[in-house]
């Protein structure tokens, strides 16, 4: 099934958000699937946001932060990694396909890589089809 996946991205303003901007400067092409929400640090992303995005029907969620050692706030991305690893396991145990959820370390210099990641993620989501939870209010009231 071919459709345009909707990816909600959370991007750290120092690295991944800057990397996405650089992709623009480089005119790197990628599908218009991803829309970024700028956060100061990937450590600002709450697991709730990821679950909310999926519950609302996002086909994919991407969290982008700085590579280890590069975090503007020293250790924020380590906290992200710890949280999201456990969240991912929990989503898996809940019966949700965690291939829809990605954690990527993309630096402010990796414009092309940002484009590649989106390209690849979009393709993968296209193969998986839309988020099955799209639509419906979640309960029968």
């Amino acid at each position, binding site marked *: 099934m071919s459709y345009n996946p909707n990816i909600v991205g959370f991007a750290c303003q120092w690295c991944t958000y800057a990397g996405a*901007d650089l992709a623009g400067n480089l005119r790197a*092409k990628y599908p218009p699937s991803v829309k970024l929400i700028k956060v100061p640090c990937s450590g600002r992303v*709450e697991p709730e946001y990821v679950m909310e995005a999926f519950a609302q029907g996002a086909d994919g969620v991407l969290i982008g932060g700085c590579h280890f050692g590069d975090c503007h706030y020293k250790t924020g991305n380590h906290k992200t990694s710890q949280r999201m690893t456990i969240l991912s396991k929990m989503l898996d145990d809940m019966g949700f396909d965690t291939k829809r959820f990605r954690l990527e370390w993309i630096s402010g210099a990796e414009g092309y890589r940002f484009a590649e990641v989106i390209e690849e993620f979009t393709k993968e989501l296209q193969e998986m089809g839309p988020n099955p939870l799209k639509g419906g209010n979640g309960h029968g009231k």
Partner: protein
Amino acid sequence: MAKVGVYVCHCGSNIAGVIDVAAVRDFAETLPDVVIARKDLFMCSDSGQEMVKQDVRNGLVDRVVVAACTPRTHEPIFRAAIEKAGLNKYLFEMANIRDQGSWVHGNDHEGATEKAKKIVGSAVGKARFLEPLEDKFVPVTDAALVIGAGIGGISAALELANMGHKTYLVEKRPSIGGVMAQLDKTFPTNDCSACILTPKMVEVYNHPNIETLTYAEVEDVSGYIGNFTAKIRQKQTYVDWSKCTGCGDCATKCPSKTPDEFNAGLSDRRAAYIMFPQAVPKKAVVDMEHCINCVGREIGTMPKINEKTGRPILAPCERACQAEAINRSIAHNPDGAIREIEVGSIVIATGYQVMDKGWFKEMAPASPNVITALQLERIISATGPTEGKLLRPSDKEKPHTITFVSCMGSRDEHFHTYCSRFCCMYMIKQARLIKEKYPDMVINMHFIDVRAAGKGYDEYYVGARKMGINFFKGKVGGLEMLPEDKLRVLAYDMEAATNIEYESDLVVLATAVELPQDATALAQKLGLQFCGSHFFRELHPKLGPVETATEGLFLAGCCQGPKDIPDTVAQAKGAAAAAAVPLSQGQIRIEAIISEVHSEKCSGCGICIPLCPYHAITMQTYADRPRAQIEMSSCKGCGVCTSTCPSGAIVLHGYEESQIFAQIEALTA
């Protein structure tokens, strides 16, 4: 209810060439709370900005969304504009439809337009929940603390003091000077270390703006940039420094011996001692760990009386001191005294140590004639144990063949993988100094490669070759102990692709530079981090080489990584300039994008406390209950605590939960 104005930019054809700007504008109009949606050719131009300002001034809008390029470059421009028009600058949000839109989806006009709508929707969603915020200012204490008084600390302190700032210089040893004071001459100019350092030491000590605290250590630091409180422990000297004249008589009479650190263990010093002849301040201390309490003179006890003479029986040190600076009857507090000082910024210049030869098992560490380069520096120094005569330790005879071995513990995965950076150069220096004095001495130098990257350095190295010093490319593999304390060198000649063996009288090891053990404790007190090489981590290896992740703390010299004297001094002056910035501003601005605890919601669980990389969160007591509080001047606004607080008690202004949920909703609508 918020009145949101949306302004969509064409950016010439940059955006409009791909995205249907009119459609985006039309869509924006349909969003909740949007009262006006306009478009313009260049939003950042004067006319574009004026359009926004007019709407604000006319009271049409109270939240502004500009859909254009990236907030990373343009947010400040628009914020300033609405602020001029009388709106709080934080009531602004940008939708990035160029850098993350038209520029990357040039081949998909429709997709780009749809994405732009979503992004605008997200920005509007957030804007509806924006709140006005205020930047804050806090006053600073116009004083600086410099920790460590080697050439790095000395240079930084002088610089700060000359700019007019009160400066405290804290040194843990009895005298300032650091490693440089132990050196004989210094590359690349071969000037005498003491001749250039001693005047600086004296200048520091006498500077009206500098208070030098030697034999002192930092016990604790609290506070934040502009307002640090440092507790300094003045260690117990057991000598009344106000009386001590530095004559050294006590040291001559004191019978207790222990290896002399200043001479790198090559000679002994006494328990009562002055660190070295040019020490500043030139004062004696009694090292209680090695004092043997002569004639039973425990500290704080009255002397026994000689039955014959009727006079008190004093220890040799007390007896020797004409100035009566040593009085063992006084009950000195062994912990010394704590002093609190208030400063606005701190420079850390605590230097380094070199590795001990004992680590290198293949290098016959048991032989007295295997020494470290620092020991050689003392041997060839006029103030050293041999008064500058080159005599080998085992028999105090002049050696005929000397071997220099590079990279001991550096560039080696067993110890340190980094290059210690200045050993190549100082070995060449030592070889040159020796060759100058003893032209017929055989000097063999072994390098993996010679690292001489500095102004005049390669010339200095090539000059050494011209002097007849032998250079071999190839690392020494080991030493074998021969009779008469000679050593057989097992080396390799890379160019000839063959091994080499020869006998040597003295072997000098260029052992690696590393931080001393107590650096870890200091790092904990100050909240410093270590880099992969276990030196203190700078904020950014290129653009923040003197700053640290904690505002107000700056680094200088070898504590940040191996560097020679020229680089240490350059960095120290840079650190001083950076440390002076908050001091000269008189106050510091605290950006409003920081976190705040709503103490009425806080459960006092303390989960947030260890998370903050800046130690900005502390527990306070509100109505008997423990509740968290964030020190606004320490918070950098990362939001790690906000995302974690299980009670939902913390908000990160500018990135509040309601705002982010609104964005998610808009993006998935």
